[in-house]
């Protein structure tokens, strides 16, 4: 496919644009990065704190206090079983981060070596094969692959993470390949070749460290997309299964009470948006920080 930009790698950034006064864009970049960091930090802190403390025990519903509004005892209210919404939001943050970490991990561990190989090899059939495989995988959008996995392996967090990770491989492979192609002509690569380094040594010592910035940016963007896809999957009832708390599931269950208790939908929805926005902004901010030549793009 000759489409210039895969939506998953550029969805949050768009094409570059220059012609900007430096100082202003520098400040905007800084702001993007900091806001992203703060939003991601909120989700991480919620998840970490939930391991040692939650406002209420998650599995002991308060039968007397069903569908309560906001109060001092239940800052975010309670759901139809009398479970504390804030507690469930905190526990849901764990699944959100777990899915993102595992999906990004799978995609990175498979996609980056494939992309570097495709960029370094002189065998055109090999790079062609890798890139055509990539194109095939691109025909399976993340959510669709996750639905297929839930049909084949049964619904659950595990199949969801695997599917989202596999679906994100092409994005990493593309980024790694184009990064590799850019640096293959540099002197230090030629020098390493002259020094009789094996291709594997060159890849590990010179190529990967030099494309690490690109990979980290892609990881942040992919993280955001995985959070969105997992929420969608759980919303369909095909992702994380009860009794494990997940934001997508909470949002789905809230639908019955939209008329009477809209905050049951607002809270999980808000936190999904915070997580996605956080990782998107972090990716944008990192892109500018890690690569000074890109400064001024927004």
């Amino acid at each position, binding site marked *: 496919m000759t489409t210039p930009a895969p939506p998953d790698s550029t969805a949050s950034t768009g094409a570059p644009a220059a012609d900007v006064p430096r100082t202003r864009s520098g400040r905007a970049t800084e702001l993007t990065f900091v806001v992203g960091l703060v939003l991601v930090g909120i989700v991480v802190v919620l998840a970490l704190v939930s391991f040692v403390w939650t406002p209420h025990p998650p599995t002991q519903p308060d039968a007397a206090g069903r569908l309560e509004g906001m109060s001092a005892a239940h800052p975010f209210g309670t759901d139809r079983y009398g479970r504390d919404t804030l507690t469930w939001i905190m526990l849901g943050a764990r699944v959100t981060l777990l899915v993102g970490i595992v999906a990004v991990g799978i995609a990175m561990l498979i996609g980056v070596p494939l992309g570097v190989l495709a960029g370094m090899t002189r065998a055109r059939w090999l790079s062609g094969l890798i890139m055509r495989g990539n194109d095939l995988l691109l025909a399976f959008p993340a*959510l669709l692959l996750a639905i297929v996995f839930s049909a084949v392996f049964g619904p659950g967090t595990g199949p969801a993470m695997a599917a989202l990770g596999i679906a994100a491989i092409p994005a990493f492979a593309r980024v790694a390949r184009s990064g590799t192609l850019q640096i293959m002509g540099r002197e230090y690569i030629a020098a390493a070749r002259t020094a009789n380094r094996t291709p594997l040594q060159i890849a590990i010592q010179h190529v990967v460290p030099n494309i690490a910035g690109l990979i980290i940016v892609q990881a942040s963007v992919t993280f955001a997309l995985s959070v969105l896809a997992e929420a969608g999957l759980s919303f369909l009832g095909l992702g994380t299964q009860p009794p494990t708390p997940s934001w997508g599931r909470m949002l789905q269950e809230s639908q019955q009470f939209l008329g009477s208790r809209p905050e049951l939908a607002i809270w999980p929805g808000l936190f999904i948006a915070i997580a996605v926005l956080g990782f998107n902004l972090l990716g944008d901010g990192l892109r500018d920080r890690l690569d000074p030549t890109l400064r001024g793009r927004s």
Partner: protein
Amino acid sequence: MRALASRLLQFVLTVWAATVAVFALMQILPGNAAQVAAGMSATAEDVARIEQEFGLDRPLIVQYGDWVTGMLQGDFGTSYVTDAPITPLVLNSIQVTLILVVSAMVLALLIAVPLGTLAALLRGRSLGAVLSGLSQVGVAVPNFLAAILLVMVFSLGLGWFPSSGWQAPIFGIGGFLSHLILPVFSLALVQGAILTRYVRSAVLEIMREDYLRTARAKGRTSASALAVHGLRNAAIPVVTVAGVQLATLLIGAVVIEQVFVLPGMGSELVRAVENRDLLAVQAIVMVLVFLVLALNLIIDLLYTLLDPRVRNAA
């Protein structure tokens, strides 16, 4: 012409590879399909009967060949679970999904092109920053959250539109539109936010081109220079992205159909997964993947039409 032929060949090969991938995925199922269809309490005879009835006892390569030749003739086979033919189900639901997706894309472009252009022209001013910030937030809102918020306000709150259901256009255009409007907006608002960012970038890119600088130097304002000389050029990347996003929209529709209980491909897919109706899953997934690939092909062809540089190079 050679480029066109090789692009078409690539399309056919990818579609073929996708049929193999989808078919193979369905075979890794723990336990076999006949067992699943027969249910937990089925006896060995029941399973054997289903296997024989649906030809599941034949070698895989024969089953695969059968499935593909069937599809080429527009026949997706018969469900092991419901005993009903799958083709009518696909044909009925695809209409709903396509109406939804195409209207959403049109609306998203109607939102994104003016807003993105405005955001680019106002770059560096506070209103431009607000527009960029809004689009950044819009990208982070899942479409099903947008759907829930829209239902809260316009259906439960104001009572303007129904909160779910579908009415075919032949039963009255008013009912059709009022059922369509919230689902379409749910998809289009989020999509519009994504596209706004692309339009803004594309316009910014164009604005620093020499020919626009010349036009401005000759006395045109930024906006009129852009309108006269720039928009056609900015359209190229935007059309490309909009096309790629159609595929995203197609999958987004799966969730939105569920929220609004629309009888589209997404609802059928989720129902088939829940019933473990694997042949139906296989058919719907294949149709969706085919649509994604076909869209990509069309975009590539459009791209060459729009951009003379690519056209002449090819």
